[in-house]
């Protein structure tokens, strides 16, 4: 199903442009031109975020923290890591999800839970750095607070819903 979405959107937009008698070629080229400028503004923001997140992740402090918290939670370490890492790093959580699939089986409860957590929110820190960085806003006010609270709500409801649906 989802394979049809992309071509159909492109088709629809091009046909609509032709019907409205605009120079679709010129519009495409002109719009696409901005991509260089956009990528150039994104790059330093991306680099800054990846640098600090990677320094934190590679220090191992999160793993140690999770090991400390583990006795209080009734889910395996990979799932706890996934929950904590979700707002911070998309790549790290995808790698964790791979581990969970391999270790517990793709249709096991933990894999279903992990998939739900991965899908229910986005990588908050990355999105915020990218979006606010791209327009050079330094003071993001309460943006991070709200987004992180929404993440906590999403992850908690994933847990509850998966327990209700899959267990």
């Amino acid at each position, binding site marked *: 199903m*989802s394979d049809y*979405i992309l071509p159909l959107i492109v088709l629809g*937009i*091009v046909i609509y*442009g032709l*019907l*409205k008698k*605009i120079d679709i070629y010129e*519009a*495409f080229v002109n*719009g696409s031109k*901005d*991509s260089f400028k*956009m*990528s150039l503004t994104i*790059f330093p923001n991306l*680099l800054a975020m990846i*640098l*600090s997140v*990677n*320094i934190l992740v*590679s*220090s191992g*402090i999160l793993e*140690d923290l999770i090991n400390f918290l583990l006795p209080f939670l009734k889910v395996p370490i990979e799932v706890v890591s996934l929950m904590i890492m979700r*707002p911070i790093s998309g790549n790290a959580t995808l790698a964790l*999800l791979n581990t969970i*699939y391999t270790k517990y089986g*793709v*249709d096991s409860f933990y894999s279903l839970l992990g*998939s*739900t957590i*991965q*899908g*229910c*929110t*986005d990588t908050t*820190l990355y999105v*915020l750095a*990218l*979006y*606010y960085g*791209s*327009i*050079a*806003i*330094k003071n*993001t*006010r*309460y*943006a991070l*607070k*709200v*987004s992180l*609270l929404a*993440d906590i*709500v*999403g992850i908690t*409801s994933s847990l509850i819903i998966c327990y209700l*649906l899959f267990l």
Partner: protein
Amino acid sequence: MVSKIWGYFIIIGILYSLFFGDVISLNETILNSTKTSLEMILQIFPVIALWLGIAEIANRSGLLDKLSRKLSKVLGPLFPEIPKGHVSLSYIASNIIANLFGLGNAATPFGLKAMSSLQELNKDKQKASRSMITFTTINTSGVTIVPTTIIALRILYKSASPTITVISTLISTLIATFFGIIIDRLMAKRYHE
């Protein structure tokens, strides 16, 4: 606040590595970060180039305008500061639609366009506006109907039912977005707006 977190991550990460961790891998991490981000840009750039082109056709043909007017009723109350029919609404709508269908890559250029058009309306260019925060809240809570990446991964791992988590994902993402918007409203009031 993002700036403070950024600093804390670096300070905590480096100090922890120095005392309890592996200094050699810390060196590698610092040096490899540039490479990783360049690789990511090279992945994102073609997608941005493609979608900005397609979006401009939609923009000039008036399709985005139409979309914006249609969605004004739904999105309008969430973004009271955006004037009716302003182009930022259609970029926000396109971003949300792309996210709904799991086209995360296509969502990014629309999101960046939305931010820059919201910045035009922003009175204090240094500070995030209320509309921006509402937008990023909806965006980071990640409303998705079709979590494409996960379905693809589940197929790769030969799952008996690759789409089984679609419903649990949808419910929890809706709850997250719903509460996100409520928290956003409450915070906006607290910050005197």
